Each structure stands twice: as C-alpha cells, then as structure tokens.
C-alpha cells in the first residue's frame, strides 16, 4: 500500500480541538501527556525504591496506585489511535525521522536529551504543551496562556543553535 500524505495541519488542529472538547464532555478531564509519563515513572520506581518514593514530597503525592488515572488510559488510547491511523495511511514501519546530516544514533540521543529537558520543564511548570497549554488554554487559564507564549519564546530563542541537526 502506498504511503498517503499527512493531513493538513489546520484540519488536524481543528480535530485536536474537537478531541479536547469531547474529552471535557465525556470524561470531565482535559488532555495531557507528561502526567502519564510521570505516573508511569513513579510506579516503576516504586517497584524498586518504594522508600524513596515515600520520602520524596513530590512523588509521595502519587504513591498510591499511580497508574489508576485518566491520563494513563488516555495515553494508551493515543498509542492505539496512532497505530491505527498510521496503518490506515500505510506508514507502519520502523523509521527514525531526522534531518539529512545527522546519524540515527545522534538523532535518538538528542531526542532523548531534549525529551528529558522537556519532561523536567513540564513538571516544573505543572504541565506540558497538551496538559497546560492546550487544556489550560482552553479553559482560558492565565497560566496556560503564559506557558504557551513562554514555550514559543523558548523555542525561537534556542532553535537557532540546534538548527543544523535538521537542515
């Protein structure tokens, strides 16, 4: 099967907005991503170092049944939906999306580094682009909008330094 073109970002954006609206209507909760990762990490760390989780004021808030949470199930749904839409568009294969000049290893290492910084920042800000900017922004929360502008400012300020990895 031939690989199909990606959706127009404008159509996908409207779709994402409707998904967010549906999440509010059906589940009473907005979308999020990094919270699920954090809960997964708390659960995983709890398997080996339950004492550390209990002693840490941040982790201990989530220590009881960390995986029993809407975000965790939502992220499972995201994976299933992503798989199905990828299969329908004929895009189901192992590949590393990268610029022409960077090696696979280099791309993965940078992605891991960037993801770690992003995850750390998301917990400092109490939310990520989906949990805070999208969901918070939809409720017109000031923090959500301030965060969104900060994200764009930060991205414009630092993109110049890493642009060679993509072009």
């Amino acid at each position, binding site marked *: *099967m031939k690989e199909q073109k990606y959706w127009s970002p404008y159509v996908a954006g409207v779709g994402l907005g409707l998904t967010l609206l549906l999440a509010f209507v059906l589940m009473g909760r907005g979308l999020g991503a990094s919270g699920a990762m954090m809960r997964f990490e708390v659960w995983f760390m709890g398997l080996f170092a339950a004492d550390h989780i209990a002693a840490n004021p941040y982790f201990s808030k989530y220590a009881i049944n960390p995986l029993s949470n809407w975000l965790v199930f939502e992220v499972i749904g995201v994976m299933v939906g992503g798989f199905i839409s990828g*299969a329908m568009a004929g895009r189901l294969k192992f590949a590393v999306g990268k610029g022409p000049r960077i090696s696979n290893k280099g791309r993965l290492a940078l992605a891991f580094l960037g993801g770690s910084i992003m995850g750390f920042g998301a917990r400092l800000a109490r939310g990520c682009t989906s949990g805070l900017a999208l969901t918070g922004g939809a409720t017109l929360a000031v923090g959500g909008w301030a965060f969104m502008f900060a994200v764009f400012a930060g991205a414009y300020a630092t993109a110049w330094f890493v642009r060679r990895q993509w072009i």
Partner: protein
Amino acid sequence: MNETTITSGRMNLGVDPVLHAWGWEIPLYLFLGGLTAGILFFSAIFYLRGKEDVFRAGIKVAPMWVPPLLAIGLVALMLDLSHKLYFWKLYTTIRWESPMSWGAWTLGIIFPISMAWAATWMKDVFPNWDWKFPIVEKTIELLIKYRRWMAWSLIVLAAILGMYTGILLSAFNARPFWNTSILGPLFLVSGLSTGAAFVMLFSKNEQERKRYSQVDMVLIGVEIFLIIHLFMGFLASTSVHIQAAELFLGGPYTAVFWVFVVGLGLAFPLIVEIMELKGIHIPAKLPAIMVLTGGLILRFIVVDAGQSSRWLYKFME
C-alpha cells in the same frame, strides 16, 4: 476452653466481606486451560477437514505446545491446593453434579490424548526425529492409524475443558458476579479465540493465517455479544447482581476491564484484523498478542472481581 460456633461459612476467616482464596494460580490455570482447549479444538477440526498440508502450524506445531502449557497450568492448580498431596482423591469418585469432578476427569483424559496427538505429528514437523526405542516407534505408528478417533475425542474434550473453566466459577453461587451461566460459554469462546491467536503467532502460511484470523474475528464478535449479555443479565436481576455489575460499570474494575479486556483485547484486535483483511499492512503477530494478553487479563479480572462481589454489602471502593 474457648469454643467458637460457626453457624455460617461466612464466619470463616478470609471469606467475608471479601473472599481471599484465589491469587494468580487459578486465573493462570483457567487461561492456559482455555488456550490449550482452543489449540486442540482447531487442530482436530482442521485435521478432520483434510487441511493437514496447508494448516501446518495449527494442526501439527501448536499441539506440541499443549502438554507443556497444560502442565504449567496444572502445576499452578496444584500450588493453589491447601492439601497438595490429596489431589488424587478427585479420581476416586465421579460426581456428575460437580464441575470440579468434570474438570479433573476431563484433564485426566485430555492430557494423555494431547501428548499422543502431538507425538503423532513429531515426524511431520521434525523429519529427522528418532524415537530411539522400537516399541515407542511402533506405538506411534499404531496411533497414527487412529488419528480420526483422537481428533473426534479431542473436539468433545476440548469443548468440555473450555466450558468447564467458566462453569467452575459460576457453580460457586456464593459470589454474585460468578453466579451467571454466561461464564461457561464466555470462557469457552475466549479460550477458542486465544487458541486461534496462538496459532497466528507461529503460522508462516498466508492462507492459514487468514483462515485463523477470520475464525478469530467471529469468536471476538461472539465474545463481545456474550459480555454485553452478561451485563444485561446482571442488570435485569436482583440488586446484588446489579451491584456486582456495577463493579464494572463505574466501580473499581471499570477502567481495567473496558480498556484492557474489551478495548485492547477484543475491539482493537478486531479492528486491526479487519484492516488486515482489507489489505492494509499490519504485523500479524500484533492482534494475536493482544488477544492472548486480553484473555489472560479477562481471567484475572473475573476471578478477582468475583471474590470481591458479595451478597450483603456493596463493593468497597
């Protein structure tokens, strides 16, 4: 002397308010019992339909996994017994009204037949196989002549084995969530479905994978139908049954059951298998693994939820 008068089974330790009798052993055994029943059922059926050259994985290879898998299940079953050395007492009597007796005898018969069935296929699968002893060789040559008989008995026994894993629970009427006759057919269909999925994991033949995938899709459809009727039956029953259903409809088992069993274990593989039939490229192992995992989680949830459903009070959060 301190005398305790027990006037009800509920006064025993670990029975009320929540039954703490069964851990991981029973659900694992129920899963493996259903899985092996499914493998044997399809192996025998497709053999009788003369597909032995096409459906190699399903008819010849998969049954070789049955004795070890069933043995693991039986070890788990033994571990659950309080008096392990007395298991043989089940074989001193036949009680038609007891599912435990049905299960013990069915297992006692199907286990050796499944070993013989697998043995008759050894030389087909491994052409250089040598049985070492002439007497074994002769016996297996004799058995090969009786394959049709073995196949018919396997079909009947596999159906009983698959069905009994559910009846075992539903016969225990002290727990409202188990007290439904749908559990028997539900576990049978789920077992057949996991059996078909197991073959899909190994099959290298396009035609075989397609046929097992079609069979699996029908079984998943039936399973979803049975699950809907399970809850319709509970909701139309007495208030303890309604409360048992509420464990899954807003209660503590809601998310795990609907996401992992119905969503990821049934609906998702069904969608993916439909997509595959329509020619979209999907790794064939994926729906198979999802069905197997969903079947395992179903057994765990049904056993766990049944123990926490009860007659007198609503479930605890």
